[in-house]
């Protein structure tokens, strides 16, 4: 159940040559990609289909293989098995510099000895574009990211966020078939991260360029992606739209990673499940028997009576609400999101109840 | 790193070519010492222990002895004059650090041959006060080893937060001598060791100042012996080079072991 966002094409204008050449994007495919480091298998037959113009995130914890997958796509690593396709061409044996890709790295990728404008024009110059024209197109790209006024600065004179914007402009100015981003926001401050990720998404939508984005931050992935592929130990556990992953996580890992679900035991009978004496409707196909139930923090409440007993392990004040980790008498750990006014502390005894909303089970 | 690093072939080609350039003189010197009229033997090496030739080698043993004493005194200067001053600057005068660093690295810009021109009159005065023993050269050597010792010790100081350590010690009631000897010095051990060993190496290899101030040290002795027995000079050269090499390896390994141990 996937529906890529329709690609918008823009009318050609004299000023903005970058946007004027926006095309409808290239399809990206991973077919059974296998990668080993020595005797360790890092990617186990990865299959992924990215539609033209789609923004797909690879999300997962450190070591899950998401960066390796991106680097195989870029050609910076060689796969030990399987194939990578751009458009409908197998590019597995094509060297990086001929794959026509744009890539933004986590940090330090701007050339320190070149001014911003020359950094941005670098890819064009390598493609034998004349200097004057390359600089003009580079200036357009910098305008797209809002940094045309810093064209004559050197990278060490820019902030982290500005450097990444330049890196983005540099990657886009050559009008690559696909844009690859390797945790581009991880090294930045929280505030800059939010601003920049929205900007990346905006530009991506304007240009309609196929984009693969690697991150370990679930909020980031949820905010910008058309689809998210949650990875773990070299495999994709689930691919879907942000809503799908959030509401119907396919595995406990996905549930825990996307939305901080807690897992408790329940007994399902058809379209509903019995948990802690409450009957809740099930999302998805009917199930019977003993199941695992995914509970989202915002669907749990602290109550004065009823529900089940639990002891507070930790409580974090997050401004408009609190997130509290409690341990039930059976030893299960639950994340509860509740109003900030309900102050609890370590070792407090509380009672937790579930709101009567549909839940996912497995 | 795969995109930057050279291919194996390149590594091997450069390694072999440059390695040959450095190995040939070493090997040649070794074969030179094996010359015995028209054949080869260890006669020159055995001669080291030959009592009949002992007089010939006496300058070397004297020079070596002097050099070792000099090394000791120089290390003492490094440990008991330079180090406390560096700690003091770090704790009390952090703003003076750039100026101090400039001073410490200054000897690199002032060639020994220039300094020795001015040292001659100074050492005439010293000879009147402390005699003409070779050990007084250590005062000049302390300056020669300064840049090397400074770098090692400064690296150690930067790696260890001696400010917090000394404040903690003071708050527990320790006086400054205790803080210096029992708190700071043990934590600077790897830097102090490296600085000491490098100082020993530099002192053993020093020639310019000793030769122009007419003192007998290891290197000047080698030159003297060369004129009477070139083979012996070469033997001692190889031994000294090997010794210095081993010492530098020890410094590296010791530095690594320390930083490994320091981790919690």
């Amino acid at each position, binding site marked *: 159940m996937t529906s890529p966002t329709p690609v918008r094409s823009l009318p050609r204008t004299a000023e903005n040559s970058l946007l004027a050449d926006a095309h409808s994007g290239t399809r990206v495919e991973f077919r059974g990609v296998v990668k080993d480091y020595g005797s360790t298998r890092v990617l186990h037959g990865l299959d992924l289909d990215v539609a033209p113009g789609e923004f797909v995130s690879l999300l997962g914890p450190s070591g899950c293989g998401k960066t390796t997958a991106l680097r195989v796509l*870029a*050609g*910076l690593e060689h796969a030990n098995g399987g194939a990578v396709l751009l458009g409908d061409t197998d590019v597995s044996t094509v060297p*990086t*510099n001929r794959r026509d890709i744009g*890539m933004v*790295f986590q940090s330090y990728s*701007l*050339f*320190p*000895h070149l001014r911003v404008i020359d950094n941005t024009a*670098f*890819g064009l110059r390598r*493609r034998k574009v004349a200097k004057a024209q390359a600089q003009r197109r580079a200036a357009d790209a910098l305008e797209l990211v809002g940094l045309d006024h810093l064209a004559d600065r050197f990278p060490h004179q820019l902030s982290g966020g500005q450097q990444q914007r330049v890196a983005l402009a*540099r990657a886009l100015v*050559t009008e690559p078939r696909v844009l*690859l981003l390797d945790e581009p926001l991880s090294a930045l401050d929280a505030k800059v991260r939010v601003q920049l990720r929205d900007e990346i998404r905006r530009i991506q939508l304007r240009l309609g360029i196929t984009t693969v984005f690697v991150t370990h931050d679930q909020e980031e992935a949820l905010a910008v992606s058309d689809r998210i592929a949650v990875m773990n130990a070299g495999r994709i556990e689930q691919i879907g739209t942000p809503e799908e992953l959030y509401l119907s996580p396919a595995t406990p890992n996905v549930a825990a990673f996307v939305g901080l679900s807690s897992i408790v035991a329940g007994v399902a009978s058809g379209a509903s499940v019995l948990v802690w004496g409450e009957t809740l409707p099930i999302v998805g196909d009917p199930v019977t028997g003993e199941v695992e139930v995914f509970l989202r923090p915002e669907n749990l409440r602290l109550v004065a009576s009823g529900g089940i007993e639990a002891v507070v392990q930790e409580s974090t004040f997050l401004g408009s609400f609190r997130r509290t980790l409690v341990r039930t008498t059976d030893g299960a750990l639950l994340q509860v999101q509740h109003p900030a006014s309900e102050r609890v502390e370590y070792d407090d005894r509380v009672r937790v109840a579930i709101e009567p909303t549909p839940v996912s089970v497995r | 790193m795969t*995109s*930057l690093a*050279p291919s194996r072939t390149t*590594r091997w080609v*450069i*390694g072999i070519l*440059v390695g040959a350039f*450095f190995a*040939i003189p*070493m090997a*040649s*010197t070794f*074969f*030179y010492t094996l010359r015995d009229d028209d054949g080869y033997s260890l006669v020159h090496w055995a001669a080291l222990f030959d009592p009949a030739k002992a007089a010939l080698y006496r300058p070397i043993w004297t020079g070596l002895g002097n050099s070792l004493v000099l090394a000791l005194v120089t290390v003492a*200067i490094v440990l008991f*004059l*330079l180090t406390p*001053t560096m700690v003091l600057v770090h704790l*009390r005068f952090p703003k003076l650090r750039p100026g101090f660093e400039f001073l410490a690295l*200054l000897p*690199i*810009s*002032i*060639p020994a*041959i*220039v300094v*020795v*021109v*001015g*040292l001659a009159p*100074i050492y005439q005065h010293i000879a009147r006060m402390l005699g003409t023993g070779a050990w007084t050269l250590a005062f000049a050597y*302390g300056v020669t080893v300064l840049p090397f010792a400074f770098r090692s010790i400064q690296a150690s100081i930067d790696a260890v937060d001696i400010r917090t350590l000394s404040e903690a010690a003071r708050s527990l009631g320790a006086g400054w001598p205790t803080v210096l000897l029992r708190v700071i010095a043990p934590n600077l051990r790897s830097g102090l060791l490296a600085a000491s060993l490098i100082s020993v190496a530099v002192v053993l*290899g020093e020639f*310019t100042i000793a030769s*122009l101030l007419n003192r007998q040290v290891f290197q000047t002795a*080698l*030159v003297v012996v*060369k004129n009477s027995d*070139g083979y012996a000079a070469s033997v001692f*050269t190889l031994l000294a080079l090997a010794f210095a*090499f081993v010492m530098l*390896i020890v410094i*590296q390994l010791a530095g690594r072991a320390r930083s490994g141990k320091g981790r919690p």
Partner: protein
Amino acid sequence: MTIATPQVTPDGAERCAPPRRGASARMWAWLGLVPFLAYLAVFLVLPTMLALASGLFTRDGSFTWDNLAALGDPVVLATFGNSMWLSLVTAVIGAVIGALVCYALLGIREDGPVRTFVDAAAGVFAQFGGVMLAFTFIATIGLKGVVTQLLLGVGVELFADGPWIYELPGLVLPYIFFQIPLMVITFMPTLSALKPQWAEANLTLGGTRATFWTHVGIPVLAPSFLASTLLLFANAFSSYATAAALASQGSQIVPLQIRTSLTSETVLGRENLAGALALGMIVVVGVVMWLSSLIQRRAARWQR
């Protein structure tokens, strides 16, 4: 009428006590610097000043420009020229080969056996005993050297035109022997600081390995390379022991000229030539080192 007086707090302590304790502590701290500074003053600053100043006085102590004028003497100028030529040639060759060695070491584990070996060897050859290096070269390509004999065996007479090893050209090889290791020591940190992201970014932007070096690698490394080359120049210019051991007489380069003027009473009819020569040397070495550190500092801005 209120009179403002220093208040005495109930427990009797004066409120202004802490600054006073601080002031005396600071005084002790300044005193603590004195031993070392005095030491430097006597054994570094003073000799240097004496050396430089002695060029301005005759043996009897009267002021004269004569010694400095000697710097214009054709013999002295030739000596400086020789030193410059020797330093330049060995600095450039040492820098290029040293940089290649650093390149060959790229990516090798810093605490592995290869790096340990190379670092120790470089340390020994760069800094330990020019005298011994001279001896090894004499044993190799001296008049009776091992390689000389080997070459004779195949019909190549190294010294057909005279014993050049004991003259200026003979210094080139031994000097290179310590220049290359010095370059390796000085330049390796810079080369290691080349970021792999730059190489990868270059690839993704359509460049090749060759264009990486021409457009990114070499431009980024150039300032450091230049600074290191200047350092090598100063190092060769200041070097004494190797030349002294190889050329037991003779004064074809400035340090040897200083030796001659220290060991004989008058040279070129002037008495305190050594001081003038020392001045000339310091000017050359000082300018070169200053340039080197200037370039190095500017390059450091990029390596943030």
